[in-house]
């Protein structure tokens, strides 16, 4: 965790620097005797910089006083995260074009397979039932809008 903390505090410092740079680009249209649009961002930049430096110094100089927990990232875990996020991104992207009804069963099948389900008929049946149940509950009962799809989506 110590190494991770040091890397995170450096990343936060870089972010604070970028945020400070963006703050300087804010247009000025200040009223007399008032704080401008850049005041709060500048204050927050200072706070973030201070805290990041504090975290960095703590983990460099006072590491012996801190009880660190071990954080490990296995290849399996990293691959799992990447696959899941990819499934989510593809789901959101595909839903934009093909709509909720067509894409959701496919998303559910992929999620269930990633979660370790192996019985095909169960996976398929579950995906279709859940898709329809959510559709009826959200769209029909509560009138919550669901993405209709731009290309070949079904009319919801």
């Amino acid at each position: 965790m110590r190494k991770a903390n040091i890397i995170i505090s450096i990343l936060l410092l870089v972010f604070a620097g970028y945020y400070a740079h963006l703050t300087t680009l804010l247009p000025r249209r200040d009223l007399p005797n008032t704080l401008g649009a850049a005041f709060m961002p500048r204050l927050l930049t200072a706070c973030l910089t201070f805290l990041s430096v504090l975290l960095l110094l703590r983990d460099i100089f006072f590491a012996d006083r801190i009880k660190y927990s071990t954080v490990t990232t296995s290849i399996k875990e990293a691959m799992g995260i990447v696959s899941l996020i990819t499934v989510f991104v593809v789901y959101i992207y595909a839903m934009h074009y093909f709509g909720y009804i067509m894409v959701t069963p496919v998303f559910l099948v992929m999620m269930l397979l990633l979660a370790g389900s192996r019985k095909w008929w169960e996976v398929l049946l579950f995906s279709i039932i859940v898709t329809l149940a959510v559709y009826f509950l959200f769209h029909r009962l509560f009138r919550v809008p669901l993405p209709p799809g731009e290309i070949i989506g079904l009319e919801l």
Partner: protein
Amino acid sequence: MGEIAIAALMDVLKLQNISASMMGALFGLFIGSTPGLTISLGMVLLLPLTFTLPPVTSFCLLLGLFSSGMTGGSISAILLNIPGTPSASATAIDGHEMAKKGRAGEALGTAITSSFFGGMFSLACLVLIAPTIAKVALKFGAPELFSLVLLGLTLICSFGQKSIIKGLISGVLGLIFMTVGLDPMVGLPRFTFGIVELQSGVSFLPVMIGLFAIPQILEGIVMGAEVIPEYRARLSGVLPRFRNILRLIKYKILGAVMGTAIGAIPGAGGPIAVFLSYDYAKKISKNKEEFGTGIPAGVAAPEAANNGMAGGAMIPMLTLGIPGDPITAILLGALMIQGLTPGPLLFQYNAQFVYSVFWAFFMANVLTLILAFSTIKLWVRILQVPKRVLLPIIGILCVIGSYALRNTFFDTATMLFFGLLGYFMKKYEFPVVPMLLAIVLGPALEQNLRMALIISQGNPSIFVTHPISLAFLIIAFFSFTGPLVKPLISGKLKTKNTSKS
């Protein structure tokens, strides 16, 4: 006032509101009793349903979930020794011991009745105290409101228990995210990068869904869902006898008082309330040594505290617009989605709605009691539903919930971004609650700060010349420095004691 209360009651008693409350209560029992699913997660999943509902119906739904989720947490705590919610941790100590002795039904019955007692007690406190606080808070101007919001934000420290610096960084990052969008005073776009959707700022619903739900999905699927042990024994004697209810009354009163009082202190947190009430129940009991071996008093006190917290936490949320925990922060968000401004003005301009919230909370408690007793065997079965089945459903609800806010995929992308951020924050021990609090309170902080300085023509002494504002600033100072100084003091005391011995 009486007429408003009766009109509010009539409103709450409409069929759609009773149905919403019942649906919320059933969902809450499910969420509460399923280990790993939190009430906050349940709330963010239900929020999208409230977009098209009237405010009162929305609150019936959400308060049903809030009340029953707290009760539901005790089911898995008692039967499996796995607390469904963090606040049910203390219940597991004696509750599970009772279950092991074949008295699971009695333990569950005690938990349900104690929860009901705690909920009703906190409701009474809410009804009696809230209007008075709101009346006082009506006199607050911009300087007082700024100092109050600052006080709310200093609570960030209490959430960063593992590392105060990390808690503060999380809060500052939340405030930074809230600077995106049109400037609240002069309307200039800030950090929008030419993206139209960003002009109205970062919507807090996708942020909440992302921070609470996505890390659970990622963890559950990637790390593998934990195997929940099966509960096979028969459940009997759930309905408690009146004599037994009376026998435990002092523990219930103790738990309810402690839960409500601690719940009303923003940032204090549920686990503190339940463990303190358990500890005090032990102290006032004649049979101290029996605590931990499976006695009903060890279940009654923490369960009453657990639900007592619910009403307590709503006092600062409704009267001052300051959420004390993630659940009330989400409830605050629900109010904003409905176009209502939380705080004292809510009592002035939407008095009937406030009374409807009181009645809705009353109904939620009653329905939780009835539903928990009548469906207890169902929840014991549902405990066995594997998480790998639930997590994909939560995934869909996250996507469509964030989409439904403004019918834009930009919000779903925001949800995913914050979900990933939340996952890494959790992994590297950065608490997410300070970020959530900062996102909810950030706009009010900046607006009131700048408004106060316009009033004082740029003179910052306005914050200390107003007595109420000064008082809030002093409390905020101690609330901020307290957690920083506490380890130093306790360290010095320890060294002193060691050198003495």
